[in-house]
């Protein structure tokens, strides 16, 4: 089913602030097999010049996915999530996320394209601290395969 073009340009968020915790960073690092002590040991992270343990580079997906969740669930968008695969993803960091960061995420629908039976939904999510410092821009392309 073609996605609803009316959503292009729509902005979702910022949602409730997300607090980056040491426990969540360690859990994520364990889940992806990231071995670095900088994700687990505060002293090691401080010696490397960081305020606290840092998140692996794909950790921002945890925050951006929460932000895009509201969009994906919009009934009028017409997205069949069971038919969705990830098409593209990018992260551009101003600095690493670290434990203690309190951030919000705002997602903009950049484009919706239909190619035959497939639809492509491109979003851009800005992750900034509650003080307004940019940390990461996460761009995502979701592909809804045709049935």
């Amino acid at each position, binding site marked *: 089913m073609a996605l609803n073009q009316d959503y292009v340009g729509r902005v979702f968020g910022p949602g409730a602030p997300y607090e980056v915790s040491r426990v969540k960073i360690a859990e994520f690092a364990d889940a992806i097999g*990231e071995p*670095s002590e900088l994700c687990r040991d505060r002293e090691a992270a401080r010696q490397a010049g960081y305020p606290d343990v840092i998140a692996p580079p794909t950790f921002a997906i945890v925050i951006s996915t929460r932000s895009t969740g509201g969009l994906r669930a919009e009934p009028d968008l017409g997205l069949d999530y069971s038919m969705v695969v990830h098409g593209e993803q990018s992260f551009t*960091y101003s*600095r*690493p996320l670290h434990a203690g960061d309190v951030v919000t995420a705002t997602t903009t629908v950049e484009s919706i394209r239909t190619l035959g039976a497939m639809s492509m939904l491109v979003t851009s999510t800005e992750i900034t601290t509650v003080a307004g410092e940019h940390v990461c821009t996460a761009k995502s392309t979701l592909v809804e395969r045709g049935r």
Partner: protein
Amino acid sequence: MAITYNDVEPGTEIPPRSYQVTRLDLVRYAGASGDFNVIHWNERAARSVGLPDVIAHGMYTMAQAGRYVAEWAGDPGAVTEFGVRFSAMVPVPDDGRGATIEVSGTVAEKLGDNKVAVELTARADGAKVLTRARAVVRLP
């Protein structure tokens, strides 16, 4: 020993690595990431939407490439840009072995400010599963 900016030139190859991915890894990743799409853990649901088997989260595969380049740089915080296109699925059979993701990389360009652009490749079962995979990494 971590690599330094002066050690590398365009064309410098990063030693390839292989990472095993099992159903347990996908369940753990679903929990840690919050992506509970059924196609990543429920074989019946995956087949019902035309997939060959449970498939790995694209983000799990991307995370393996991220871990690979971060380990080379010696610091996960050194990765300032990271982008990929997911070009093929990674089916993860329930056979006790799962799938193998093979990652390799080459320095494409030396940028200013001690940064280098790295082109990455990831394969599973002979297929390229990531294309246009590129990371910008700051080296010591």
